[in-house]
């Protein structure tokens, strides 16, 4: 068996050699495939690799009149400008703090929900709860953020309730100390149902015999959860956690852009919102491109590391 496998591996490697003969033979046999791939190549080259080439404006003083190639080189000026400014620490701090809060609060919530749903034996009830908790996932970000802004305004729902309890209603999004809480709480609301799907599937795959054995050993429901269920879904949890940590710099800038205002830049501004504001609103193209490029490189490092680790941990990676 292993001999056959080895043979086929060797054969495969032989076929994969890029000799002139092989290239010709392959093209003769598979040219339709390569033609079919042309639209994809065009797309990837224009819209994925084109911007990577365009990112050289981070090292240039870009002026729309001169274009990407014609603008003057300035070296690392914009990187220095960013790294030595107050913005750098503020934005890194905001991005990382939001990501960490999200790992601490938003990550465990769907696991808990999945565990609780798993204990419900009434089918229609379980389905009903699932449907309702998925709901926020299907509402567009614009509407979600519009609702949040309405609810936390001084005359919004939360303001009204504060007033009933004798507090002074204020617009919570005008105060920088509230932003993170608003972001995280709304994030849990948006994602708890949807993100529980993957854990529910992992739970459905747990061997029923393990539970039977646990019952024979005298384990109650809680003991079963602690000693059977949680260990069984641990690989899924760990892999999801690692991928989440890898994405630590990819905080959702879209949501921040929809929620923040200049009064709360101190806590709200993250990489995505900063590059958008500096680049497209203030038209500091090169500066924004430099910030974006720097973050892309760091992010790339984090994500590939996370992928490597999760491959080791669960034999499971992104592709």
């Amino acid at each position, binding site marked *: 068996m292993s001999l056959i496998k080895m043979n086929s591996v060797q054969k495969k490697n032989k076929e994969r050699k890029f000799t002139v003969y092989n290239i010709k033979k392959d093209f003769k046999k598979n040219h339709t495939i390569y033609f079919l791939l042309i639209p994809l190549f065009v797309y990837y080259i224009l819209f994925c690799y084109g911007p990577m080439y*365009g990112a050289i404006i981070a090292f240039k003083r870009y002026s729309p009149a001169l274009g990407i190639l014609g603008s003057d080189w300035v070296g690392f000026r914009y990187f220095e400008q960013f790294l030595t400014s107050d913005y750098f620490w503020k934005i890194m701090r905001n991005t990382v703090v939001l990501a960490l809060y999200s790992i601490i609060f938003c990550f465990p919530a769907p696991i808990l929900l999945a565990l609780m749903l798993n204990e419900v034996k009434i089918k229609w*009830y379980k389905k009903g709860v699932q449907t309702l908790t998925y709901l926020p996932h299907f509402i567009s970000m614009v509407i979600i953020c519009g609702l949040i802004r309405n609810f936390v305004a001084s005359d919004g729902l939360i303001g009204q309730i504060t007033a009933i309890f004798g507090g002074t209603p204020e617009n919570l999004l005008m105060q920088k100390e509230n932003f993170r809480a608003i972001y995280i709480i709304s994030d849990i609301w948006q994602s708890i149902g949807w993100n529980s799907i993957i854990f529910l599937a992992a739970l459905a795959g747990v061997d029923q015999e393990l539970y039977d054995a646990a019952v024979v050993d005298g384990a109650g429901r809680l003991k079963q959860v602690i000693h059977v269920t949680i260990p069984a879904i641990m690989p899924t949890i760990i892999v999801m956690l690692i991928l989440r940590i890898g994405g630590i710099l990819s905080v959702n800038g*879209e949501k921040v852009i929809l929620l923040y205002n200049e009064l709360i830049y101190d806590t709200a501004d993250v990489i995505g919102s900063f590059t958008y504001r500096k680049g497209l609103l203030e038209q500091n193209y090169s500066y*924004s491109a430099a910030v974006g490029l720097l973050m892309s490189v760091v992010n790339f490092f984090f994500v590939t590391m996370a992928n490597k680790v999760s491959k080791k941990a669960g034999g499971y990676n992104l592709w």
Partner: protein
Amino acid sequence: MIKKSKGERIFSVFNVVILGILALVCAYPMVYVLFASFSDPMKLMAHAGFLFKPLGFSVEAYKTVLTNPELYTGYANTLLYVAAGAVLNMIMTLLGGFCLSRKNLLWKNTIMFIFAFTMYFGGGLIPTYLIVESLGLVNTRWSMIIIGCVSTYNMIIMRTAIYGIPDSIEEAAQIDGAGHLTVLWKVVAPLCKPTIAVLALFYIFSKWNDWFNPMIYLRDRSMYPLQTFLRELLIINDTTNVADEAALRDTANLNMSKYVIQYCTIIVSTAPVLCIYPFLQKYFASGVMVGAVKG
């Protein structure tokens, strides 16, 4: 069957109750919007706290919203972008998935690397914008259809699904004289219908909800999709500084009517999604799983 202990029964009840509360909390904001949208603005202004039914009944705001021509412009544009975008998305995804699932393709790993690398690294927002601009796509409907017309992640899911088709079926077709294209349309596509449906749904929803690309690339109001109009109404129009807010407190009535209009628009623009998703959710759920078991 082992009898449940008293503690376990209490736990079960407790569990069910907590889940019920959680489900209601998740759905309540939209329910509030629904009730508020049918409420009389005056009564809504006088009311404080949660709503459990519409206060009074008024469809005036709905009349205002539904007579706004921009709602229809937005809907028409969104439908165009969703339909054309999703078709193009699926063609590209299917082509990519099919080609990369071919065995003994010499350049397969190279091509895979070229595509997959873009999942981890990108040029960034500004360079992307400049490239799109230099291609002359800014402020055209094409930009909404072409940008993001294939997701590498979905393409890999597609490829995995095609890998799942037994070789013998495709070989049989080839022996019968079918070329690659015939195999793709007559054999692979029908056999991968479930995956195609799921990916199409993902694309449709992401196009429907997209607001960032339209905001960046579109200038003419006549091309705006629904989400862009919604953003104007819900986000930009919002009071963003304290002075404004104080001024508006005097005209609270006006403010409340504005809220009701916002709520109506939310309902009008979300109703299709909210009516459809409960029926489609099992496909979405299976889509999440397709993504999880790939590779």
